[in-house]
């Protein structure tokens, strides 16, 4: 089954590990007669119990709630698809969906470009590259609550360094988090800042598995650096690239703290993504059914996109 390899790759990818190479050898099954289904079940049993209780049950229950008009304390009455219709006809939902798309596109491709560029730089011989590598991972390691505090100091008030810098450059009074468009840009840049180290790790691992002889052959043929990148490097790491895009799409769409801690979704909902909207609907307006409906619609779209990208990976695998 071909999805299986993809999921293992995902697993590896989660560790920030390269998935580019020709792949591991075929999986070897244990040949011991005693390695029965029962033993394997016993191995997986604790995990299965946890997954059912903490992941499967909540999803099913949430699905039930999305058909009712309950709140956190009452389960409400059955209303059918009303929550979904209400959500889909609300302008706020579409505005949030639009921002989620922008946030995700910038988050995925912005962090990929930065991560890839840095991975390419670090691949060459540079003094202190190990130190650079560790330092550049810091935005990803530092807790987002801490970095959001730091960014708040950097941009939030007129007394912050960046607005002062902007004023000194003659850009006037720039209010990074008070202007809707600027707030959207700031949140996106913040997300790229947090996420590029992850992409850098994935791309570094992928680049490390590219055979250097290919480059020598290309150089004999007189290929330019740019040609080398677009015709050799990128196709060779395309599998890792697609996997990193899928993962980052999931991370971005599901991201809550990055947006919530920096802007809380404001000003006037300009930076409200669907997850933030779902959170506000449930925990501030106490509208459980609608909130869950938002999250479900979002997840459905997310899974469709992931599957489309998975198909792409399978095509690449055949190549």
């Amino acid at each position, binding site marked *: 089954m071909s999805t299986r390899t993809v999921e293992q790759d995902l697993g590896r990818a989660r560790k920030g590990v390269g998935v580019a190479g020709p792949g591991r050898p075929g999986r070897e099954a244990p040949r011991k007669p005693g390695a029965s289904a029962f033993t394997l079940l016993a191995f997986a049993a604790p995990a299965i119990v946890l997954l059912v209780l903490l992941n499967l049950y909540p999803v099913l229950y949430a699905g039930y709630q999305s058909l009712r008009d309950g709140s*956190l304390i009452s389960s409400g009455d059955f209303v059918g698809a009303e929550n979904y219709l209400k959500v889909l006809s609300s302008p706020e939902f579409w505005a949030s969906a639009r921002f989620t798309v922008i946030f995700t596109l910038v988050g995925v491709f912005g962090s990929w470009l930065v991560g890839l560029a840095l991975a390419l730089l670090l691949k060459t011989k540079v003094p202190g590259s190990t130190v650079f590598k560790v330092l550049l991972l810091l935005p990803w390691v530092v807790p987002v609550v801490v970095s959001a*505090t730091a960014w708040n100091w950097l941009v939030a008030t007129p007394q912050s360094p960046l607005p002062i810098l902007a004023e000194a450059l003659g850009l006037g009074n720039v209010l990074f988090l008070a202007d809707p468009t600027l707030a959207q840009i700031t949140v996106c840049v913040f997300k790229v800042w947090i996420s590029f180290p992850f992409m850098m790790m994935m791309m570094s691992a992928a680049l490390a598995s590219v055979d250097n002889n290919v480059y020598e052959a290309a150089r004999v043929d007189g290929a330019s650096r740019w040609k080398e990148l677009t015709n050799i490097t990128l196709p060779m790491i395309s599998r890792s690239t697609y996997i990193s895009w899928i993962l980052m799409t*999931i991370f971005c769409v599901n991201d809550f703290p990055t947006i919530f801690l920096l802007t809380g979704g404001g000003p006037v909902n300009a930076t409200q993504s669907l997850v933030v909207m779902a959170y506000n609907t449930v925990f501030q307006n106490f509208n459980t059914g609608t*909130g869950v409906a938002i999250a479900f619609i979002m997840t459905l779209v997310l899974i469709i996109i992931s599957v489309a990208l998975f198909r792409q990976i399978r095509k690449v695998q055949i190549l």
Partner: protein
Amino acid sequence: MTATSIPVPTGAARPATRPASRNPDAGTRGGTAVRFLVLLVVTALVLVPIMAVVGLSTQPALGSTANGFTLENFVNIFRQTDVLRWLRNSMSVTVVTVLVSVAVAAPAGYVLSRGRGKLVSGFSLVLFVIQSLPVVTAIIPLFILFAVLGLVDSLWGLMIIYVGSTMSVAIWMMAAYYDSIPVNLEEAAWMDGCSVFGGFIKVVLRNSLPGILSTAIFSFLLAWNDYLVALVFLRSSLNFTFPVGLQSFFQQNATNWGLVMAVAVMMMLPPVILFACLNKYFSVGGIGGSLAGQ
């Protein structure tokens, strides 16, 4: 039993083709200097927010008589905030999460790595779907359930949810690492009369330290950094973990940067120290995992 120890697939197993001779002309002194400068500037820019946290934490807080560099904020936060309690809460939640998720994911990953058949691939698919669901969806039913069980505003409730949310990735990570361990090692152990469980413990797990550490680091970061679950479930400040503690302190003292940043430094130190020490396992161990099989 002879083959209980195999070369751990780390650096040694990486392909011989090193990137060293990538471009003959790139080795020139000028090219290297330019790249070094670019990296230096980019790294400095990237680190501005983090350096700001550290720098501001050593500046006098509002109402302080000190001027210039001072460490008094690090003394004052112990008197003015519950930072010790947050630290203790976060530590206990994180340590329990790491231990439990590794203990549960280690055998489950073995099934994913060595098992075959429809059930196993179904298991794998379920893990992926679970991973793409937003935490917000799961929180609401769990909140209702935990309210009945008395687990709202409790660190135990938090631990249970964190273990649940690390589960699918932790299982993948362990499985990916086991994939790099040749199955004939276990078979040799079985020949010697080892049970499947015995072979798993004595052969597979013994050779999986990098995989276990990677999974542990992942769980640590998830539990230590989580904000959303703690925000929803924790009510009383006695139970605050670091993220909600820092955030509430920041909201009350928004412009008192010296104190706020001192708390922030306390919060980021554990993951940064952990990562600095184990970074080798996280990156190289991981890379080894994917390349060793080749």
